[in-house]
């Protein structure tokens, strides 16, 4: 399913028209992205949380040539699902 299809699903169940729903949905992603980019975490109760992990720089190898290449330190975003969401997937509500 795509974002557009999901928007279709929720439009009508809220008081908002499709255009406003699209705007709100896009701004949710924008907020989460901006928070993560500034190193903040986002906690959505009952759903999960988005956080950033730091990866140290390391030496890796180019698998084709075997040359050692320096992989710089970086921050990577990840999602941790809430226990509620995990339980729902396994049929215990």
């Amino acid at each position, binding site marked *: *399913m*795509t*974002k557009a299809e*999901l928007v279709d699903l929720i439009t009508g169940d809220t008081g908002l028209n499709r255009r*406003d729903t699209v*705007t709100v949905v896009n701004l949710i992603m924008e907020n989460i992205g901006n928070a993560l980019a500034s190193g903040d975490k986002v906690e959505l109760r009952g759903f999960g949380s988005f956080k950033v992990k730091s990866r140290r720089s390391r030496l890796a190898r180019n698998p084709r040539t075997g040359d050692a290449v320096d992989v710089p330190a970086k921050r990577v*975003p990840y999602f941790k699902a809430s226990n509620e969401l995990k339980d729902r*997937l396994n049929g215990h509500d």
Partner: protein
Amino acid sequence: MTKADIVEDIAQRTGLTKKEVAETVDLFLDKIGDLLVDGKHLEIRGFGTFKVKERKERMARNPRTGDSVPVPSRKVPVFKVSKMLKDKVAGD
């Protein structure tokens, strides 16, 4: 940042009421949960993909007694971060 912060920001920027925004945000998250329960995945361009992975049954040990106990197979929700979001967070 919490859901309330996100709702506040969106209400301010759109002129919609906090109630309208909160309802939409809640429904959005609920529906993602519903989709995953149905075994479907959701792809949001520029953000990432939510999907369900199946973890196989495995044997584990009770660390106190050392007994082998089977861990049944189960489903776990996973989020695969899009390249765009990775780059944004990495600061590129």
